[in-house]
């Protein structure tokens, strides 16, 4: 059946200890072309063992293709891929020590939940008794023991998602690949599953490579994030690094809201002709006559729109010289009060100069 190295010995020490430090993924100059289009363009990326690594980007940015290249569903056009130190560039999916949780779960519709979870063990010809035992443990891990005999279509989206996770984890892979696994769930369930995913990852201690287009999800879950755009990685870093210090205009714009100030306006404001980015929550609105402090930058303008989001209110301010600045303010006033500023008010937007990130 499968090569011996693909099977984890059942009596091996717990995955958390045994596999820590051997689940790194290295992509070197990986390029993938589909006909004329280049989906992934000379990508070099290093995922460390045991980390929760997110690949974030808009649809068509190449992040899912990279995941499929790591899983082995697609072949690279050029470049090489190594998993846990072993080159797998031309290995078949069934010879790679990775498993995948698919976007729409890809559960086998004709098999019961228990049969689905056992599938990987079954094709490896693991003894029936051991299969039963490990399936029971896996179902317990995702707290779904009671659905073992049902068929996939009888489960809710969240349950199916957890079964897909159990089916992949039962094989104790070194790397788990997750292709937008929470995309089909509603917001509340998604947030609950995010916490669960994080907990499971900490428990099993293996590398998670997580594809998402949801920047909030990436920020919440990840140890590190790679931001994809047009088949290239724009920036790799911790959530804090990519949010606070975006290195490109794309990253600044894709993660949260950003006030991108072009070189020309920046020169007028700060004297230096480099584009800068400042987050709305770092912009303060004050009365037009208030003098800014020495370490602050300010622009004058008129509020053209206010957006109430619940915890915050966003003010969109246009200046006379064509700059638009968004300021976000916590609604920390008494609930019965209306916001202190209104559409049409002349205001001054102020931020601490060094809070703005330079976007080269």
């Amino acid at each position, binding site marked *: 059946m499968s090569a011996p190295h693909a099977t984890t010995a059942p009596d091996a020490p717990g995955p958390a200890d045994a596999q820590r430090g051997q689940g790194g993924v290295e992509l070197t100059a990986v390029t993938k072309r589909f006909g004329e289009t280049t989906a992934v363009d000379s990508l070099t990326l290093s995922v460390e063992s045991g980390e929760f690594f997110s690949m974030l980007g808009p649809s068509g940015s190449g992040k899912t293709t990279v995941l499929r290249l790591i899983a082995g569903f697609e072949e690279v056009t050029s470049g090489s891929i190594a998993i846990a130190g072993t080159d797998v560039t031309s290995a078949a*999916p*069934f010879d790679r020590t990775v498993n995948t949780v*698919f976007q729409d779960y*890809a559960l*086998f519709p004709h098999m019961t939940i228990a049969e689905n979870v056992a*599938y*990987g063990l079954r*094709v490896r010809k693991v003894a029936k008794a051991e299969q039963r035992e490990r399936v029971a443990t896996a179902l317990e891990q995702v707290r779904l023991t009671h659905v073992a005999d049902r068929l996939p279509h009888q489960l809710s989206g969240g349950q199916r998602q957890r079964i897909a996770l159990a089916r992949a984890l039962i094989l104790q892979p070194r790397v788990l690949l997750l292709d937008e696994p929470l995309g089909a769930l509603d917001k509340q369930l998604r947030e609950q599953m995010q916490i669960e995913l994080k907990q499971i990852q900490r428990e099993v201690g293996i590398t998670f490579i997580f594809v998402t287009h949801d920047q909030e999800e990436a920020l919440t879950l990840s140890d590190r994030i790679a931001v994809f755009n047009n088949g290239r990685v724009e920036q790799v870093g911790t959530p804090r690094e990519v949010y606070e210090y975006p290195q490109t205009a794309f990253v600044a714009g894709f993660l949260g809201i950003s006030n991108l100030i072009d070189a020309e306006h920046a020169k007028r404001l700060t004297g230096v002709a480099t584009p800068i980015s400042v987050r709305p929550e770092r912009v303060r609105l004050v009365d037009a006559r208030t003098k800014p402090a020495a370490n602050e930058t300010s622009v004058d303008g008129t509020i053209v729109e206010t957006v109430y989001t619940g915890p915050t209110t966003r003010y969109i301010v246009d200046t006379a010289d064509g700059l638009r600045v968004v300021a976000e303010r916590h609604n920390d006033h008494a609930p019965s009060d209306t916001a202190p500023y209104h559409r049409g008010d002349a205001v001054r937007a102020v931020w601490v100069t060094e809070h703005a990130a330079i976007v080269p």
Partner: protein
Amino acid sequence: MTITTTPARTSKPLSTLLYRHRWMRLVGLLSLPLTWLIGLYIVSLALLLVTAFWYIDSFTSKVIPGFTLENFVLIFSEPAYIATSLRTLGIALAVTVLSAIFAVPLGIFMAKLASPWMRAVLAVAITLPLWAGYLVKILAMRITFTEEGFFNSVMAPFGITGPGFSVLTVVLTLTYLWFPYMALPVYTAIRQIPVNLFDASSDLGAHGFTTIRTVVLPLLWPALIAGSVFTFSLSLGDYIVARFVGGANAQMIGSIIASNINLNPPVAAAFSVIPIAFVVFYLLATRRTGALERM
């Protein structure tokens, strides 16, 4: 600002009546097809079955209405008849299995691997024979497999002699005739299997053949059974193929029915019960596998 509304349309009394009374709509929908089904189809079949219990006056050769089981006794006691029934069953099963063996890999290729252009070409190639006449196709096979025919003349340099007119040629010809009825449902079913089930299977460690055995085939059961109902029952009822490419030893149930239809209608009628029984057993057997219940 003025608001214009769409004027109500003039009322149609018949539509209103039908809308109010559900039974009237049902009558409207079903009266024509039910007349056809019951009046012509069921009644004629029932008459045929009744005839199986009648007998022939040995002097006048006239059919006498009555009740006798002799016709059935004859079928089950005459060794040649039993052999013919079993041969027919074997041929029908062989045609079904052969069609399925061809249809599954072809369907996988068409649905998952072929380019759209290639897929269209193959779809036409499969369905095109349906446009040709039934007899035309049988005669084509006859020309191919006859003594000094195409097959023998091409294969002669290799020292291979064709099957000639035999049971094997009957099986090949029937497969040729009924293959589209298996290939189309199988292809459609494979197209409906999400691609990521193939990915998931290989991701979990299954090689290609394991995936076909554990994922593709179980999902194809309904299509294979639907297709096999055609290939099986159409083969059971055929006798023209046996007559033109079967030679002397490939008589089928249909051949016997055809030769008795004027001489001894009650025996022909009794014999036509056999393929019906085979089909009923076949359907019960497929039901027993439980393959259909999980769909």
